[in-house]
């Protein structure tokens, strides 16, 4: 099955909603200090290879519903194609590059999509993460690094 697994239509929806970022008021009336988290979706590729069109379509609907529901905190997200399409690029000792077929690490569950969400703290981010329709694996919540 050579196509995008999930989240296909999410990007457009998210982009549309960038301008609707809400001002969350804290107790003192000022905007609360917010942080961004990446919700990384790890799923079993064999599951998706075997899943039919019907499961795929249902999952897409679930992601669309998720994006709708969490539009106010979503700041980005994409689906990734399977690791069968991945290319790894590493520096090699001679100063050149080794370009090889496949993902960086062979694991049971592979990264196949992500969302970026805004949350006040980890508890809020985890609450959103619990709603991500990951079908076969799960999600990992990682704080986005703030630079500067």
């Amino acid at each position, binding site marked *: 099955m050579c196509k995008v697994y999930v989240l296909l239509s999410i990007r457009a929806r998210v982009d549309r909603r960038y301008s609707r970022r809400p001002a969350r008021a*804290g*107790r*003192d009336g000022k905007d609360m200090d917010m942080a961004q988290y990446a919700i990384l979706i790890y799923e079993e590729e064999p599951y998706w290879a075997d899943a039919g069109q019907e499961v795929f379509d249902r999952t897409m609907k679930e992601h669309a519903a998720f994006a709708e529901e969490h539009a106010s905190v979503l700041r980005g997200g994409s689906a990734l194609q399977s690791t069968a399409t991945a290319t790894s690029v590493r520096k090699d000792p001679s100063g050149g590059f080794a370009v090889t077929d496949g993902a960086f690490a062979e694991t049971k569950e592979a990264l196949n999509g992500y969302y970026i969400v805004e949350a*006040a*703290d*980890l*508890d809020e981010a*985890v609450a959103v993460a619990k709603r991500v329709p990951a079908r076969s694996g799960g999600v990992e919540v990682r*704080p986005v690094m703030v630079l500067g």
Partner: protein
Amino acid sequence: MAGTAAADPAPTAAAVASAVAETHRREWALVLAATVRVTRDLDLAEECVQDAYAKALTAWVSRGVPANPGAWLTTAAKRRALDLLRRGATLRRSLPLLVDDPVEPEPDGGPPHEAAPHEIADDRLRLIFTCCHPAIAPEARVALTLRLLCGLSTAEVARAFLVKEPTMAARITRAKKKIAAARIPYRVPPAEELPARLDAVLEVVHLLFATGHTAPAGEELVRRDLVERSLDLARMLRALLPEDAGVAGLLALILLTDARRDARVAEGGRLVLLADQDRARWDRRAIGEGIALVREALLHRPPGRFALMAAIAAVHAEAPTWQETDWREVVALYDLLVQIWPSPVVALNRAVAVGFADGPDAGLAALDALAAEPQLAGYGYLAGARADFLRRLGRTAAAQAAYREALLLTENTIERDFLAGRLRQLGG
């Protein structure tokens, strides 16, 4: 400074040192929890609290031990923190600030006002819920709790868990970094999350108690320090959450189990089984307190895990002799416990109780039903319990083999001595 009403105008340095040590034990969590609210940084708060304790050593000699040492230390630590924050002396700080509810601004920009008692209570709960957050690795939750709630040094925490100090230091540093970087909030969870989050806290306190009550390895059967710390924490939670049945159950369990401490170890550190303990040496005050708490905890429906475990301990505590133990009641309580906490270890304890209620044959049958449990493979108590039933059935050769198996699986020196003694009695 608030609470400086001197109880004794000219205490000796030794008396002050002992008052400071006592306050360290009793008030560390209170002082640190309040200071974190000012610093929003765990390391900085720890430094300020240590500084306050160091100041107390000299200040209390000249001015007397204050009537409320915890309030004195809190004020001193918060002042130190505000001072450092104003001077910008904390720019070296590498971690982001803790996520916290807004602190009420000080009216005149002066030092923080004395918190009302309910605010103090709230801060200690913030601290323990942060230390026991599910996003922190379980072993780090225990370490952070000992360090931040009990005020143990990293070296002491390392000793408690028999790991090297650098290993424990790395574990604590990593956990603190995660709290800051992932923004684990310094907050009491909302009502809908409270039961599950409180379970995680009780789990940590229970693990501390269990580790102290039967040290998994080493020369001592009981790590008194850990037992005392777990008791302090359970009492603190009881004071802060007086309505909670789970807290009442855990405190009851610790009290009722620990009430047997003097009867449990004989001269030379030898382990004395419940059956052979001199019940006159049990701590009747702890038992009385524990039983009252069990009754309260059992009113909650359905009764929780710790309440049921405490109820089992209460049945033993109320039996005048081993022979008069109400084993039917014990088995019935285990039947309830195994429903809400279906662990093979609980099933094993239930099987042992069946052996006393219905005879060693029934007990052996119940144990053999558990033989296939993968979680019990390598668990010394299963072999030990089988050995005991086989011995009582007069099946000497099989009993010897089971004692030998139990010996292979036990690392606590005192438990090993006990098993070896039984084996010798059987001529093995």
